[in-house]
C-alpha cells in the first residue's frame, strides 16, 4: 500500500495550477477569435477603404484612407496594428456617424446584458428544480407533463413567442407598453415595465432547454451506486436528492447555463427587434444594413470575447460541483 492517496496533500497548489491552466488555455482561443473577426471583415468583397468611405468617395480620399488604415502594409502587420489599437481600447469609429465604436458597443451591451442575465437567472431558478423533480419521478405523470411542456416551450421560436405575448399583454390587455424603451437607469419603475415581456419571453424559452438538461443529468446520477448507498444508509429522499444527487448532477447544467448566457448575447437581436430595445443585437443588425464595418467588427469581437469570458468563469467555478476536475 505504497501510495494510499493518489493526489498530493497540497490541495492549494493543485487548485492554483488548475486556475492558471484554465486561464492560459483561454489565451489561444482569444487570439484565434481576434484573428477570425479581423479576417472576416477583410473577406468582404471590395476595398475596405472604399467601403468605409461609402459611394460618394473620391479616389484621393480612398488613397488617403488606405494609408490611414494601413492597408498598404502586409496582412500580418495590419492585424498587429489593429490588435494593438483594440488592446488600447480603440475599436475604430463608425462610418455612419463617426462615433467611437467601443463606448457605443459597451452602452448597448449593458442594455442587452441586463435582460439576458436576469432571464437566465430566473429560468434557472424555475427549470433546474423542475428538471430534478422530473428525473426523480421518472416516467410518472409529473415527469411526462414536465418534459412535454419543456419540449413544446423550447420549440417555440422566441421572436414569435415575444410577438404573441406583446399581442396579448400589450395590445389586448393593455397592461404593458408595446413600443419604445426607457432605461431603468433613467426611470427604474417605468424602465422595468419595458423589460417584463422580453425577459418573460426568454425565461419561457430557456426554461424548456434547462428543464430537459437538468432532468437528463440528474437521471445519469440517479443510476449510480452512491445514490443507492445513500438510501441504504437510511437517508430521506430529500437528503438523497439534495445532498447526493443534485450537487453531482448540476455540473452539466451549469455548463449549459454558461452556454445559454453567451448564446443569448449573440442571438438577442430578434428579441430586441420585437420589443424595439436598443441593445447590442439591434446595433449589429442595423450596422449590417448600413455596412458599418467597424461597428460590425466591434460587436463581433466584443460579444465573442465576453462569451469566452463567461465560459471561463463557468469553468473556474466548476470544481464547486465536481472536485474531480481539479485533479485532471
Amino acid at each position: 500500500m505504497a501510495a494510499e492517496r493518489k493526489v498530493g496533500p497540497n490541495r492549494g497548489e493543485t487548485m492554483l495550477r488548475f486556475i492558471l491552466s484554465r486561464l492560459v488555455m483561454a489565451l489561444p482561443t482569444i487570439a484565434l477569435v481576434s484573428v477570425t473577426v479581423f479576417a472576416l471583415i477583410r473577406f468582404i468583397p471590395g476595398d475596405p477603404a472604399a467601403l468605409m468611405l461609402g459611394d460618394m468617395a473620391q479616389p484621393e480620399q480612398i488613397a488617403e484612407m488606405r494609408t490611414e488604415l494601413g492597408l498598404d502594409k502586409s496582412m500580418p502587420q495590419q492585424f498587429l496594428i489593429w490588435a494593438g489599437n483594440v488592446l488600447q481600447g480603440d475599436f475604430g469609429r463608425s462610418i455612419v456617424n463617426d462615433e467611437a465604436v467601443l463606448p457605443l458597443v459597451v452602452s448597448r451591451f449593458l442594455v442587452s446584458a441586463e435582460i439576458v442575465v436576469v432571464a437566465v437567472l430566473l429560468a434557472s431558478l424555475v427549470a433546474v428544480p423542475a428538471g430534478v423533480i422530473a428525473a426523480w419521478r421518472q416516467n410518472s405523470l409529473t415527469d411526462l407533463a414536465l418534459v412535454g411542456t419543456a419540449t413544446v416551450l423550447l420549440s417555440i421560436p422566441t421572436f414569435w413567442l415575444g410577438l404573441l405575448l406583446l399581442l396579448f399583454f400589450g395590445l389586448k390587455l393593455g397592461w404593458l407598453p408595446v413600443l419604445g424603451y426607457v432605461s431603468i437607469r433613467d426611470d427604474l419603475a417605468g424602465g422595468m415595465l419595458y423589460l417584463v415581456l422580453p425577459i418573460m419571453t426568454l425565461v419561457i424559452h430557456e426554461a424548456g432547454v434547462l428543464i430537459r438538461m437538468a432532468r437528463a443529468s440528474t437521471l445519469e446520477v440517479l443510476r449510480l451506486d452512491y445514490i443507492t448507498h445513500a438510501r441504504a444508509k437510511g437517508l430521506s429522499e430529500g437528503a438523497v436528492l439534495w445532498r447526493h444527487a443534485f450537487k453531482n448532477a448540476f455540473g452539466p447544467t451549469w455548463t449549459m447555463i454558461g452556454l445559454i448566457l453567451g448564446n443569448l448575447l449573440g442571438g438577442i437581436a430578434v428579441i430586441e427587434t420585437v420589443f424595439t430595445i436598443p441593445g447590442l443585437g439591434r446595433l449589429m443588425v442595423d450596422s449590417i444594413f448600413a455596412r458599418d464595418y467597424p461597428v460590425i467588427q466591434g460587436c463581433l469581437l466584443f460579444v465573442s470575447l465576453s462569451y469566452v469570458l463567461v465560459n471561463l468563469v463557468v469553468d473556474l467555478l466548476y470544481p464547486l460541483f465536481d472536485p474531480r476536475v481539479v485533479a485532471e
Partner: protein
Amino acid sequence: MKKFTFNGLIGGILIAILLLSAALGLVWTPFDPMKLSFTARLAAPGADHLLGTDEFGRDVLSRLMVGARASVWIGALTVGFATICGTLIGLVSGYARGWVDGVIMAVNNALLAFPGILLALGLLAVFGANQYGIIFALGIAYTPSMARVVRGAVLSLREREFIEASRVMGNGELYTMVRHILPNCLAPITVLATSMFGWAILSESALSFLGLGVPPPAPTWGNMLAAGRPFVEQAVWLGLFPGLCIALTLLGINLLGDALRDKLDPRMRGLK
C-alpha cells in the same frame, strides 16, 4: 420505452406534413402566392382563403406552402454542407492526431467560441443577405459542432478493442477508418444532423425576420412574420400562422430527434 415511440411518431407525422406541403407547394398552391389583390387585402380566414390574406391580398396558405419549401431547402442544404465538411474535418482530425489535430481543433474551438447565430451574422455581412448567403453562413457556423462531435466519436472509437483487433489483423488505417470507424460514427452524426436541421430552420426564419434572410417578395415564414407584424392588431392571423408553422416544425424535429437519440444511444442497445 412506449412513450418515446409515441413521441417519435408524433414527430414523424409533423415532419411528414412539412415535407408533403413543401413538395406539394412545388407543383400546386390554392392561389398564386405572389399575386396581389387589393380587393382581398387582410381578408380573415374563411372559405375563400383558408388562412386569410396579407396586407397585399396574397393568400397566406399558399405563401406558407412556398415558405415551407424555402425552409426545407435551406435547412437541408445547410445540414448537408455542415455534415459533409464537419465529418471530413472530424475524421481527419481524429485520425491524424498530433499537431494536425491540434491546429484543426484550435481553429475549430475558436469558431465555436462565437455564440450561436453571431458567427452566421458576421458571415452574412460577407456573403450578403440572400438564400445562398444564409446557407453558406449557417453551414460554416455549424461545421465546427459537427467536426467536434465526429472527432470525439473517432477518438473514443479508437480506444475500443475492435479497432485494435482490426490493427492486429493487419488492416490499413484507411481501411479501418472506412470500414469500422465511419459506420460507428453514423449514430451521433444522425442525431446531431437532425437537431441541426431544426437550428437551421429556426435561424433562417430568425434572419429572415430580421430582414437579413431571403429578401421579399419571395415568402419565407420568417419574413412573413416580419411583414405581418405592423398589421397584427387588425389581422391576428398574420402573426399567428407563420409562427405556428415554425413552432410545429421545430417540435416535430425535437420529438424525432429525441426518439432517434434513444434508439441510437449505445446504452439502450444490448450493451450493459
